[in-house]
């Protein structure tokens, strides 16, 4: 009987404590800067074009083959009287978020710091009704960075 009473005292003590519930949809916990949701592409605000040159490094390193990259000649390149030093630039970029396993390898292999893991809640809340809607195309991948909604964290 003593042990049962002791158990009941423990539950009584938690009764008096503050609940630990986080009321999720209303209150978002502040995410740490290193938080990894899904990868997205970064926008070079100085030149107004993506950082990504479509070099396929991330595509090759991806363990689950969730990326598709196609490059093109950069119309903004200095040879075309543009401001950019990038000879090639990304044309099409698809990431299948449904297949991505968020391993961060694409970020690590990127030579141009053009890809980063989304560390905002927007990156986590990606529910859709159709699985194919999770295949993100280039504008979608760039949107957050273009709108300066993200402060990316990339390990040095």
């Amino acid at each position, binding site marked *: 009987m003593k042990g049962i009473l002791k158990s009941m005292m423990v539950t009584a003590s938690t009764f008096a404590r503050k609940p630990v519930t986080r009321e999720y949809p209303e209150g978002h916990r502040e995410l740490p800067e290193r938080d990894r949701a899904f990868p997205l592409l970064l926008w070079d605000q100085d030149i107004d074009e993506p950082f990504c040159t479509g070099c396929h490094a991330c595509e090759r390193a991806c363990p689950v*083959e969730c*990326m*598709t990259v*196609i490059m093109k000649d950069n119309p903004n390149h200095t040879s075309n009287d543009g401001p950019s030093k990038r000879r090639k630039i990304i044309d099409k970029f*698809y*990431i299948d978020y449904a297949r991505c396993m968020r391993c961060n390898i694409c970020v690590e292999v990127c030579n141009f710091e053009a890809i980063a893991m989304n560390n905002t809640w927007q990156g986590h809340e990606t529910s859709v009704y159709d699985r194919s809607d999770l*295949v993100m195309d280039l504008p979608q991948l760039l949107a957050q960075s273009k709108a300066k909604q993200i402060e990316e964290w990339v390990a040095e």
Partner: protein
Amino acid sequence: MTTDDGGNDAVEEAPEPPDTFEDTIWPDVNRTLTAVDVRPERSVLDLIVHIPKADVVRGLGMLKNDEALQFNYLRSLTAVDNEADGVDVVYHLYSVPNKFNLTVKTTLPNDDKVLDTATPVWQAANWLERETAEMFGVTFTGHPDPRPLLMPEDVDMSDTHPLLKSHPYAEIDILQGELLGHDRDADEGD
């Protein structure tokens, strides 16, 4: 290398021409496996002993019951597909009282992947052998419960041995975007 095996196991050192394995437990193992044709080999962590397939279970029993060794714990049992060189069945043994480690290997030719079961020696071999059998197509004769372990029960997959090198990876279609396909093989080995 950060592991220290109490000085009992193989330690890396410069190979001297006739390796006597004096610093390992090989002398004890060799003494125990008197009537068995064995060959030692060093690996990074543990001593490897190669035993021919006909003697392997007998040898394992000797290793377990020997007073000085007492390999009473079967850590792991698996196989390695060496393609043309057949399939290696690998036993990782451990001696709880003596803290010895030993790897026992036996090679099965590709056309005769049959081996005696080690379940009489250690019960632990039961499920591990079932897994090895279905994954590599090795038949363990005398196994008390030769059903598949991880493979589906409702489909006959007795000819499918996924961990053999001849078994293909699942082909994943590159579905992203507008069903774009392109040559990835060129990227291999970068």
